[in-house]
């Protein structure tokens, strides 16, 4: 259980790190006083969503080929 959690955390962390340029870009959607807050909120939201949303029902590779 602990191992699974660790793995999940690490994965979330890499996803956030990979998305930092995109986050920085989107900070321009708000006032400059609010940007630090927004950055934190976005990261929080990503963590929350990656923990709760289930990404399943991937199709089989061979479904694409007849």
């Amino acid at each position: 259980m602990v191992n699974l959690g660790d793995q999940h955390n690490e994965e979330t962390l890499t996803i956030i790190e990979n998305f930092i340029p995109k986050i920085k870009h989107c900070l321009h959607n708000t006032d400059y006083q609010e940007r630090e807050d927004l950055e934190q909120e976005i990261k929080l939201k990503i963590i929350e969503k990656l923990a709760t949303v289930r990404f399943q029902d991937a199709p089989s590779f061979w479904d694409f080929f007849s």
Partner: protein
Amino acid sequence: MEKDNQKIEDFFYRNNEQVNNPIIKSFLSDSQNLYLVQKAILYPTDINKKLVDESFQSHYINVRKTKYVSNLIYFFSLDFDKKRRRLQNRSLLILDKGLSEKDGKTAIEGIEDASNETELDNIVGEGLLDNIEDEQLLKSLQKLTVKQLQILEMIYVKELSIKEIAQTLQTTPQNISNLHRKALNKLNNTLRKKGE
């Protein structure tokens, strides 16, 4: 070996459309995935096919996650700003009404009056020499010519631009800037001598 290559090429040729599907394309661009697929084409056993499927499914989920997070960031930032604006409009900063019900103090009373500061300046005196606290600097300044002092005062006390000063003294901006530089050099020299 050549027959193998032929077989793989045949497979991709036959399924050209699917191979150009973005998700399949990105999956096959990884050399390890491509190797697994080739193996499964040559030896279509259940195990080989299953290996491809597992790899593909994790790739697929990763792509979906990336897409999801990307959208999440974008739309969340928009929503965040909308929410912020709404809150801001709801609670405007009102200066001339009581801060709380009990006392009649208003926010505007807490704001310092900037014009007070200029009044204080008037008491001390507006000139450059009036505002110097350092004795050595004062002595050095007194050694400058009247014109140099005038220029320094206009630049640092009245905060005029070089152009404006040139206009009031009826000379060129270059001249002002020269005199300014000379004055600073002279100050620098006299201060250094005293320091030694």
